[in-house]
């Protein structure tokens, strides 16, 4: 088929791509889940003003394949089901081209190769119409309001649950845990020297540290042990003292002042 000049315009809001051909006839391509192969076929049949019970299969197939080509050109990932339909159309077309064997006496007429497709299209069409009915019902219901929560209602903090909520929660917990484990691995282990340096600089700034608080903020057992040894080391080598202000009170590390 010869290529024609085409101009492509995207209408993102409605998830549509319009293609203007040189001949000025306009092709609209609807993206998204709604536009499956059956929708596309119904659209083409309507556009051609063809009779659904007597689909001009050669023409429709040609149009259909054009669309698929266009989609590819637009870099729209052509979903598998569109390709399956291409194959189906081509198969129907070739079966129609085969010479018909006349039905023998008493035998039933061979089925029209298009029949299965027509049935599917009609079935699909019904549900599209049913969807429209639902749409208009929902519109009416949106104009109707129920009473506000009253005292006797249960607390809104609570949720009623389905089995899917349960599964989702479980997934979330597992995700959360995975992240926590990764964070654990990422945290670098401190050496004693680093712990002494940290403690020293904090003391220098604060002049006074609460031992209990210091230990409470440590994450691992290893850090706790290191902090303990570091404290002893600092008390031993530097002018700081451990002070307990009352009998079961908190223990403080205090930097000795010159006059102290």
């Amino acid at each position, binding site marked *: 088929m010869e290529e024609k000049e085409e101009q492509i315009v995207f209408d993102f809001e409605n998830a549509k791509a319009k293609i203007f051909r040189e001949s000025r006839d306009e092709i609209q391509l609807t993206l*998204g*889940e*709604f*536009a*499956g*192969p*059956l*929708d596309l076929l*119904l659209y083409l*049949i*309507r556009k051609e*003003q063809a009779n*659904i*019970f007597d689909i001009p299969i050669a023409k429709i197939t040609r149009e259909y394949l054009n669309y698929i080509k266009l989609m590819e050109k637009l870099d729209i990932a052509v*979903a598998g*089901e569109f390709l399956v*339909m291409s194959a189906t159309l081509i198969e129907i077309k070739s079966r129609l081209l085969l010479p018909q064997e006349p039905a023998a006496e008493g035998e039933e007429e061979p089925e029209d190769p298009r029949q299965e497709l027509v049935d*599917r*299209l*009609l*079935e*699909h*069409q*019904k*549900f*599209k*119409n*049913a*969807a*429209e*009915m*639902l*749409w208009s*019902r*929902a*519109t*009416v*219901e*949106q*104009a*109707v*309001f*129920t*009473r506000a*929560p*009253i005292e*006797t*209602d*249960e607390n809104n903090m609570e949720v009623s649950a*389905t*089995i*899917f909520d349960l599964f989702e929660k479980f997934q979330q917990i597992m995700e959360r845990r995975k992240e926590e484990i990764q964070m654990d691995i990422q945290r670098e282990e401190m050496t004693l020297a680093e712990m002494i340096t940290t403690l020293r600089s904090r003391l220098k700034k604060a002049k006074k540290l609460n031992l209990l608080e210091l230990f409470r903020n440590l994450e691992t057992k290893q850090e706790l042990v290191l902090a303990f040894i570091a404290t002893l080391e600092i008390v031993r080598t530097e002018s700081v003292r451990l002070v307990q202000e009352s009998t079961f009170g908190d223990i403080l590390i205090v930097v000795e002042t010159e006059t102290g």
Partner: protein
Amino acid sequence: MAKEKPQKQRRSLGELVAAIEALIFVSEEPITVRMLIKIINEDRDTVRAALDQLSNEYDERESGLQVREIGGGWQISTRPEFHEDVRAFLKTRPSAKLSLAALETLAVIAYKQPVTVPEILEIRGVQSASSIKTLLDKRLIVSKGRKETVGRPMQYGTSKDFMIQFGLKDLSELPNIEDFEDFVQ
């Protein structure tokens, strides 16, 4: 044998209507006839008659409210005519409608339930995974157990919320699917 409970005094229909009105109001969800029978301690016919009378009273006095059967129970709600006033007060806009894809999937599930994902694909011609997820999130559909077939796929059906949001008394109120046959010209 002696009666254990003191027999309640029989109430007039008017009193029953009023008691039922109070119960419908208090209930968060549409209240079922069965529940009303249990609480009011009257037979089904009496409760039904009271419900009809109550509903008619609301209609006749041209109330701003209506009493109606929805989602398998009875509920009081505002009348659609007053939606502008109510919206102005609640400062709400019509909530986001479902996408056409989701509505189509919902239509298939409503008419074919219980139905599996592959069966929906067959009718719609496209994958419906994200629509099904949306419908589950909005609690319009629920899982209906697994189908005893290869792979034991999950089956889906519509929920009570579906009936409430689409203003249906029960599923039998859905128009017949054959009525939607519409020959493409």
